[in-house]
């Protein structure tokens, strides 16, 4: 694979939590291509939260390089990494993605409050939010409601809209469907795919459920690439 086309490239990454003797991450190589939809399979405790933290610039590796768009995150200052995260990443957690006291629209536009370039790319921020909420199939009458008045499934779709606003280059999704009913999972993934494609973003989707891996461009097993071999 051509190195230049990689959006994210991890080389010889090692990380040990402070106070631990064994590393939680030891990854020789890991890449995500531009616009690629990558399924990362890993049981809980396999170091996926740490890996996501490292990619998001929240965890500074002890060793190795994380190249994002050819920039080494390790060489950036804390402030520059914060700016990078605000501009380039969309994040969807397992659950509790939204600020409960904000309305749905304000939750979607949250990243635009912290990054000017993200707001610029979104154009009309309010219209972009509505467009994404339309695309994520969220009924208009729900949008002025407080986030905590929504069902879990609705909240996850709002979180996806937020992750995508302002077209970040990479969307990190950490088990975003685990709180959903099984028949809703596939629908959520399909909506996510269509919008990731529309935004031109790459998607790193982490899950322990191999059934969901079907439609992804590529599937990687974290226990396989992580030489640290953390016990599950």
């Amino acid at each position, binding site marked *: 694979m051509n190195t230049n086309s990689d959006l994210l490239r991890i080389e010889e990454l090692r990380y040990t939590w402070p106070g631990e003797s064994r590393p939680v991450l030891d990854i020789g190589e890991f890449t995500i291509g531009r616009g690629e939809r990558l399924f990362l399979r890993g049981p809980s405790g396999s170091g996926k939260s*740490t890996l996501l933290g490292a990619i998001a610039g929240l965890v500074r590796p002890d060793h190795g390089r994380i190249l994002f768009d050819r920039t080494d995150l390790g060489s950036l200052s804390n402030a520059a990494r914060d700016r990078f995260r605000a501009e380039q990443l969309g*994040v969807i957690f397992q659950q*509790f993605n939204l*600020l409960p006291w904000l309305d749905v629209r304000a939750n979607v536009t949250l990243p635009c409050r912290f990054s000017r370039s993200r707001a610029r790319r979104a154009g009309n921020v309010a219209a972009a939010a509505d467009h994404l909420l339309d695309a994520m199939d969220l009924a208009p009458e729900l949008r002025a409601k407080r986030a905590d008045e929504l069902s879990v499934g609705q909240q996850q779709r709002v979180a996806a809209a937020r992750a995508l606003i302002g077209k970040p280059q990479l969307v990190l999704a950490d088990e975003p469907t685990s709180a959903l009913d099984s028949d809703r999972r596939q629908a959520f993934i399909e909506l996510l795919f269509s919008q990731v494609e529309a935004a031109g973003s790459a998607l790193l989707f982490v899950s322990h459920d191999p059934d969901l891996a079907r439609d992804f461009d590529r599937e990687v097993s974290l226990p396989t690439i992580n030489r640290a071999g953390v016990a599950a």
Partner: protein
Amino acid sequence: MNLLGLALRSLINRRFAVILTILTIALSIALLVLVEQMRSEVRDGFYRSVSGTDLIVGARTAPIQLLLYSVFGIGDATNNVSWQTYQELAGTSDVAWAIPMALGDMHRGYRVMGTSDALFEHFRYGDRRALELAEGRAFDDLFDVVVGHQVARQLDYDIGDRIVLSHGTGSTALQQHEEHPFTISGILAPTGTPVDQTLYISLPAHRAIHIGWERGTRMPGAEIDPDQARERADELHPESVTAVLLGLQTRAAVFGLQRRINDYRAEALTAIMPGITLQELWRITGLAEQILRVVAGMVVLAGLLGMLTVLLTTLNERRREMAILRANGARPWQIAGLLVFEAGLIAACGIIAGVGLALLAQALAAPWLLTTFGLHVAVSWPATGLWLVLAGILGAGLAIGLVPALMAYRRTLADGMQVRM
């Protein structure tokens, strides 16, 4: 801007805890402001009540007691100054004027003072202002009475109204001087001093209504007929007066005269300089004031600690909120700033509400102070010094906000991407 909007919405979401915290701080600030305001207002009120009087003379007693019963109508005299001594005092070469005060009667809760025309000529209050009659004139007929501003206002009196005085100074003086009704001849302009709460009669009138009362109660048949009294007005004078206010020719003579009066052989007397005695009074009340200040300070501290408790408690609940903000691009200093801003806003709202409460309480207490002590307490804007203290408290509030802010800062760095519950 955007960040402040977020902070406000977060605060509104927790409005009950936030309002309670603001209320706690507001009450503590109100207490602090009230203690400070009342202290200076009450002092001003006392100073305003005696200006231009060089010496106050009464029977031997404690100086503060003499000052309180003669000028402020607080407490009673245990002994009087004989008429002869009063005349000697008034005739001393250093003395420019003497205002006699004969107390002992009341009218519907207000003090009645027997005095002379010297009161209207020489008594001064505030910035050396003389008493002025808002309506009517001073004593003309023997049974004329001049009433203070509050007396006329509260009891709805007009010139020409006839009133009856009561004997004794207890709160319920039961015996009435009903055979000697008085006519209101004058109403004084407001002064903001105990004068407003006093009725003034002439010394001969004071004597006339007490003929036949030598044993402290009425002896039927012994009293003097009003018309008879009018005929004999020139020769009537009380056997004693309660106190005498003296004005001197030269202020330099005050120490010498004070010593001479205190050493007076014929009668045991006390002469005081009102300003110095007030200082003594403040020395006594000063300790109480200091204690009140310390208590108020502690209460403010308790209020601020209450805020810290609330902020720290919510910090745990809001850990998730902070992780979400961080994942969406908030910098750690922005999250810390959010908390400092919250603390500052709570403290500022508390201070503003507290000052408002204090002013309200002052406005409500003012009528009570006026009727009870004759002290006019203005609802005044806090002095610069007090504003500096309040600014210091705001600063302390912000500093207290730094504690949770620092904790949040460190946690957001340590938590990374994990949304902990």
